[in-house]
């Protein structure tokens, strides 16, 4: 019988349960952060339970940490959450990348970076963007705190097997169009719930040509299309990325031989297939309050079709018929688990080099991890950003969700490399516009988005 990659991965991890019923899946890796774990540890303590497999668990700090002075957490509530994780990891014997550590950063950046994330694995985290790890040919999905506790206690989780969807992405990406535009364009076309009930696999010549970091950006935002899981078949690009990393398998050749069996046998094995041609794809910018409310940079914002649209326009302070070039940008944010990796910062720095951000624009550059920060500084990217008038910060989630001091002021339009543009996401009243790092860099320079396809390399 032929199978999808997802089916193969799933089958490998079933501990108990029949097909068609919720099954008990074994979890190879759980990543923890300070926000969704305290109650899970509390539950373990209340019931006198231990952590089943501390060696399959890794914790770090990302959501709450201040990025200006990462060692000085002024917010008492944030500090408590941070100290709680510090104490919990110590008590339960879990590896912990504290602030200042070379291994600290956004969970979805450090997992791959450290080689913790590997093809063939099941990976969970109390964070919806865990889909990111599917880029390695693994099953990665976000879970709630009860499930975090369940995995800590048993190293397993009950899950209903989703249906599978293949997204065939093909064609050469035009100049000025990036991986971020693929996923934003897909969600703009298909809506924010097209993936509900499905595990998605992205494949095709476009995907094969992408770097691991680009693949991660796509899988990362799969949840914005409603699917918990987004994955890509592991190939030479994947193997080359994993090789040599701290927690990579000792016997890489044997590992690769196994990983090479992870692929979808036939397109027919998917429950649903959709086609996405990128040859005419344009840079995408979100205008509204969910990631599906987005348009190509050269297209007008849509007419109001329902109450959702009306509410979104009302919040965002824009009108149907306007274009992205007419959004007055006063804030630019570079970072997040979507676009806070070295290649993203390189793209942005390349645009900003020799330029200055427009008067009145505030720009934050927040590396996704300490390791990204160090690598960027080694390349002199920090200086390019600073010369351009940007703030160069410490690693964390920062203004992607504004749980820390980094927030976009009310009413201010922010060009952002992040993943969500919900009401209040980046701060109370903040107006988020999602786009690729290159688009955000040009928006910071110009004070508005431009069609970067018209700019020479």
């Amino acid at each position, binding site marked *: 019988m032929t199978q999808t990659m997802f089916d193969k991965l799933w089958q490998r991890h079933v501990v108990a349960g029949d097909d068609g019923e919720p099954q008990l899946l*074994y979890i190879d890796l759980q990543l923890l952060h300070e926000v*969704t774990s305290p109650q899970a540890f509390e539950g373990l303590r209340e*019931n006198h339970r231990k952590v089943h497999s501390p060696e399959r668990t890794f914790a770090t700090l990302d959501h709450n940490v201040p990025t200006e002075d990462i060692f000085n957490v002024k917010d008492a509530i944030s500090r*408590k*959450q941070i100290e709680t994780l510090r104490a919990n990891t110590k008590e339960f014997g879990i590896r912990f990348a504290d602030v200042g550590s070379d291994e600290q950063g956004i969970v979805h950046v450090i997992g791959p970076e450290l080689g913790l994330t590997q093809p063939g694995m099941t990976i969970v985290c109390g964070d919806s963007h865990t889909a990111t790890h599917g880029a390695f040919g693994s099953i990665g999905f976000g879970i709630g705190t009860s499930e975090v506790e369940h995995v800590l206690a048993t190293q397993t989780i009950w899950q*209903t097997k989703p249906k599978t969807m293949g997204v065939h992405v093909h064609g050469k990406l035009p100049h000025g169009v990036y991986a971020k535009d693929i996923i934003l364009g897909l969600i703009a076309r298909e809506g924010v719930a097209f993936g509900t*009930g499905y595990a998605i696999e992205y494949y095709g010549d476009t995907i094969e040509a992408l770097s691991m970091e680009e693949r991660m950006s796509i899988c990362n935002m799969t949840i914005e299309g409603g699917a*918990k899981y987004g994955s890509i078949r592991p190939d030479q690009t994947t193997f080359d990325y994993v090789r040599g990393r701290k927690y990579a398998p000792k016997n890489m050749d044997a590992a690769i031989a196994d990983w090479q069996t992870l692929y979808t046998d036939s397109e027919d094995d998917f429950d649903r297939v959709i086609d996405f041609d990128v040859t005419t794809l344009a840079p995408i910018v979100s205008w509204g309050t969910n990631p599906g409310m987005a348009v190509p940079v050269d297209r007008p914002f849509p007419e109001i079709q*329902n109450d959702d649209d009306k*509410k979104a326009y009302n919040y965002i302070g824009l009108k149907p018929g306007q274009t992205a070039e007419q959004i007055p940008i006063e804030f630019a944010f570079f970072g997040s688990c979507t676009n806070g990796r070295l290649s993203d910062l390189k793209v942005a720095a390349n645009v900003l080099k020799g330029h200055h951000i427009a008067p009145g624009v505030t720009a934050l550059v927040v590396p996704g991890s300490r390791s990204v920060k160090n690598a960027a500084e080694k390349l002199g990217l920090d200086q390019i950003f600073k010369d351009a008038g940007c703030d160069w910060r410490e690693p964390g989630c920062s203004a992607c969700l504004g749980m820390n001091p980094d927030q976009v002021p009310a009413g201010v339009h922010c060009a952002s490399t992040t993943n969500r543009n919900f009401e209040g996401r980046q701060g109370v009243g903040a107006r988020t516009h999602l786009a690729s790092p290159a688009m955000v860099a040009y928006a910071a320079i110009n004070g508005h988005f431009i069609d970067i396809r018209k700019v020479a390399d």
Partner: protein
Amino acid sequence: MKPIGQITSTVVAVMDDNIDTDQLVPKQAIKDTTRKNYGDVLFSNRRYLGDGRLNPEFVLNDFKHEGAQILITGHNFGYGSSWEHAVWALRDYGFQAVIAKDFNDIFYMNCINNGVLPVKLADEQCDQLASLPADQPVTIDLPQQTVTFAGQTAQFEINAFWKDRLVKGIDDIEATETFDNAIKKFEQRRVEE
């Protein structure tokens, strides 16, 4: 977890589609380290005005709907983050069930794991429920998988496995601990391979 059988209550409707987790709980509230007392922050950006007073325009603040234990809503409810705090807020506010046109996948499981019953009904039925008079009770019968309102009974789907857990109020981890041997065997097999 408390077993769920029948829930009879009046309803309150917030019919927007794509109500995301940021709307359900503000970020400042998820910085807490406990599982309790999230009721006051539910829908806080809509429930309260800038100065902290109750927003009289928001339906949850309408005294006619006080005590409603069933929330009626639109498509893709619970979209966004995996924050279980969103479900804790619904639970602590007093909602025992949410009837929606459909749910986000992660959110649905968070509901199951906290004994807040997620019920998916057809669009028309949700719209009908939303327009019921404020004092009219609705009955959800989990064992029968039915919702009875205004003289009609609608059937809903729920996986038998999850239903069993909710009806019996089973503690998930305790139940899984009975699979200890299977987990050990699985780990052994892995090492041998």
